[in-house]
């Protein structure tokens, strides 16, 4: 991924927090993910297909999601609301990226995971970029793993297959 492409997602993060809460988030320099897991309490995963393949996921602690839900006007907040919101944040940031990548940047509906840091694995040949986010005192992360589809992978029968594997057994 190019710096310009990563910046598209950074802009998406900043826009989300600014518009929804009125308070901007701070984004630290992106880094390449190593072997360590980068997942907090709730994770929303969006599979990407079409001209690009891969996934984007947003992971957050429960406390930040509760605070965001309060900002959205929610008063009674439960587990299902936190699940719903983490998926919605991931969906919004990935969907906004189509303004740059175009309508062939196809996004899936969110897959939401609770805990289980070893459950998400991306194809080994792809680099995973981690964007650290701080909003108020809360930490969250956006992880991007994308490749441009080759002519072979652009074949119709493969275009609907995102490149993310979620192992529900581990």
């Amino acid at each position, binding site marked *: 991924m190019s710096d310009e492409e990563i910046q598209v997602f950074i802009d998406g993060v900043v826009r989300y927090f600014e518009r929804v809460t009125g308070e901007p988030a701070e984004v630290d320099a992106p880094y390449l993910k190593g072997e360590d897991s980068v997942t907090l309490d709730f994770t929303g995963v969006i599979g990407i297909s079409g001209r690009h393949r891969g996934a984007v996921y947003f992971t957050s602690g429960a406390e930040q999601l509760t605070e965001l839900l309060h900002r959205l006007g*929610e008063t009674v907040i439960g587990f299902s609301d936190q699940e719903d919101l983490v998926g919605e944040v991931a969906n*919004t940031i*990935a*969907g*906004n990226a189509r303004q740059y990548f175009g309508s062939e940047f196809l996004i899936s509906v969110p897959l939401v995971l609770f805990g289980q840091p070893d459950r998400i694995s991306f194809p080994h040949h792809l680099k995973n970029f981690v964007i650290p986010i701080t909003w108020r005192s809360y930490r969250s992360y956006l992880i991007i793993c994308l490749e441009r589809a080759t002519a072979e992978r652009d074949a119709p029968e493969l275009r609907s297959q995102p490149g993310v594997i979620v192992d529900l057994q581990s």
Partner: protein
Amino acid sequence: MGARTVLGTSGRLLIVDDSSTVRRSIERHIFSDRVTKIYQAANGREAMELFERYRPEFVTMDLTMPEMDGLTCISKMMALKPDTRLMVISALGDAETAIEAVERGANEYVVKPFSAEDLNLALTNLIAEA
């Protein structure tokens, strides 16, 4: 999904979004007394069931949803009731999708994330211009 009755004299509103948080957020921003009843659907299939049963005057429509996507829903709804006032509220920020939604019959297109002010203004326009 349930329905809420609002004091007033006219139109029904169907809110379609797979996020319950977004559905409730939209519902909280309906201040017009022209909206008398609010229905909610979490996917395109549910949306079509409610649309065919209640024939709402106003619809807010997400695009990326399970079971049936929003663009397909728009086409089906407009075929059944072309005078429906419909506003897309979606994260999909590309111009092609917005143009396609409008060509299928959408009256407004709001890109998530929205501020409370953005949503108030768009909903007021949708309902006032009916």
